[in-house]
């Protein structure tokens, strides 16, 4: 294979990978604050995209009103999930928390489809589908936009974690017992992280909905998002961004080389293999913290 094709695959891999990071940041936010693996992020993403659609298309609001409004709606909704469902499971074994988030995922998927139907719809962001040539390399505009959003969110969160509220969240992530004892409301912090993750889900839902249409397939991003989050270390936002880039390149280049041999569809296989290898070799990921366990 020639170099230009390789470069094109790699560049597009980086962009796609950043879109995975966009999804994974939501997972990381919640895990950071409460050590809850949020397997309902796929369902939240789907719900976010449908809320935007409902506001923009069904109620006829312009997109620049609909998107912030959807973010507000989903923020409240995310905090509500934490308040109603997750808070009472605090301290329970991880299997119950996993099942709860899976249940929320299934419920969100069923409810959104029951309300809005399963046919694939488009967001119509107004981004042109004309290919963009950078030198000899072909780049998709919407991927570029999505990557920009991912980096923007990353910067916003880095800055946010320097504010007073952000420092509180960091304290909770560090040691929630100690945070409690100095008067930080851990419950409210965890709720806030769910709200923020839901806003991230809205942005991921819009971008991915524009790329592949708003339908059930949005919730299938979960495996890729999980792989990115685990590879980056489940509690590191920077890790999620970097792991997204790495994984995007591996997936794009790897599948281009592998597909002819195995007859297509090797993307999921690569993702699953990376996930298994990461957990086996370095469970805490690239930048995650190692936990010390007491008997």
């Amino acid at each position: 294979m020639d170099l230009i094709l390789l470069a094109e695959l790699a560049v597009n891999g980086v962009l796609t990978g950043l879109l995975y990071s966009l999804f994974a940041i939501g997972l990381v936010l919640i895990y950071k604050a409460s050590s809850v693996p949020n397997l309902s992020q796929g369902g939240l993403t789907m719900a976010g995209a449908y809320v935007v659609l409902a506001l923009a298309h069904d109620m006829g609001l312009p997109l620049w009103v609909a998107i912030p409004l959807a973010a507000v709606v989903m923020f409240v909704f995310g905090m509500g999930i934490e308040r109603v469902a997750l808070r009472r499971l605090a301290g329970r074994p991880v299997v119950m928390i996993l099942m709860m988030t899976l249940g929320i995922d299934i419920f969100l998927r069923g409810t959104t489809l029951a309300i809005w139907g399963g046919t694939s719809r488009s967001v119509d962001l107004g981004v042109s589908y004309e290919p963009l040539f950078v030198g000899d390399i072909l780049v998709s505009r919407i991927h570029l936009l999505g990557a920009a959003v991912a980096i923007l969110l990353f910067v916003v969160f880095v800055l946010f974690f320097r504010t007073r509220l952000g420092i509180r969240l960091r304290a909770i992530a560090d040691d929630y017992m100690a945070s409690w004892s100095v008067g930080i409301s851990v419950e409210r912090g965890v709720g806030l992280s769910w709200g923020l993750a839901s806003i991230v889900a809205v942005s991921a839902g819009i971008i991915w909905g524009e790329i592949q249409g708003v339908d059930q397939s949005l919730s299938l991003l979960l495996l890729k998002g999980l792989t990115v989050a685990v590879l980056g270390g489940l509690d590191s936002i920077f890790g999620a961004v970097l792991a997204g880039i790495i994984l995007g390149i591996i997936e794009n280049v790897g599948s281009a080389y592998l597909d002819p041999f195995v007859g297509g569809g090797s993307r999921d296989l690569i993702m699953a293999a990376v996930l298994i290898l990461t957990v086996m070799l370095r469970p805490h990921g690239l930048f995650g913290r190692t936990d010390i366990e007491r008997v």
Partner: protein
Amino acid sequence: MFYRLSGVHHNSYVSESRLYRIPADRNLALFFLALGLVAPLLVGSLYLNSYLLPWLVWTAAALGLNLVTGWAGQLHLGYAAVMAVGAYSAVHAAKFGIPWEFALLIGGISASVVGSLFAFAALRVKGLYLALTTLAMQFVMDWVLTHSPAISGGSHASLQAPTFALLGQPITSDIGLYYIAFSWCLLVTVFMLNLRRTGLGRALVAVREKDYAAAILGVNSFYYKIVAFATSSFIGGVSGAVLVATFFFLAAPEQFSVTVSIQVLAMVIVGGLGSTIGTFFGVALILLAPGVVNGIVAKGAIALGLQLNVETLAHIPTATYGALIIIILMVEPLGLGKLYGNIRDYLMVWPFDQLKR
């Protein structure tokens, strides 16, 4: 009925370690056993084969998962893959001309070999990371199934199961198939009930509570983790094979996809971790309730004169299924088995509730 603990005194270790320490429990179990045996006479063949039979087979499968998740405490999100291994190898063996009795055994053994691979992940990590690894393994298995025509049966990706036969007698009647499912479920249930009384069961519980602490007590936690995975995979593999042989009649990759893994885990958790009777309830709820709710909604819509979208109706079962998981976990995180246990303990000493343990 009245104060059923009356006259129950154990004064030897043998009587203390009986399967049922209280006659009332034993009588209830015998009653349900008899009910299962005469079920073909009580219900029509439609209910027998489209509700009771899958319920029993899925219960057997879920009990297998309960062994590894509820008893040994190892999260397993790839159970459907293990069932698929059992189902496909049994069907291939049967097509090859091996009698079904041995084909089921082959299915179980090959499933437990593959299932032990999952155990190697459990030796390295646990908790959340184990769940993620087994989930990834499930995706790998799905991929292998859909991408290898030699296993999944050619371009249509479905594999016809040969007629089920025992001792050379083909079994085709609805009642015959029901008894096959019933006896497999009974076998697994008796095994799971007796687990509490064996050293294996106690070792698994020790590993679940804290594997390091178990190791300090002299329980080889690596060994018991592998045993737990291998045993549960054997049960899962045979259950998968029985499911294909008596219910689906053909094997297809979608029957063993990742959603099925999640569904079996939901059955176990809704039923209650480590609870045998709870698993029966959990499977019934997860398997049957969504269809029932859908029927009620459809009838209600007609009764109220509402025009419901076809797509809405198609997705209500999914929403119900999710809502059931959420509600059960909110109301009683220990599952339906715990709810049953509460009611049982209350009725056991009924007029004298001061004796409540």
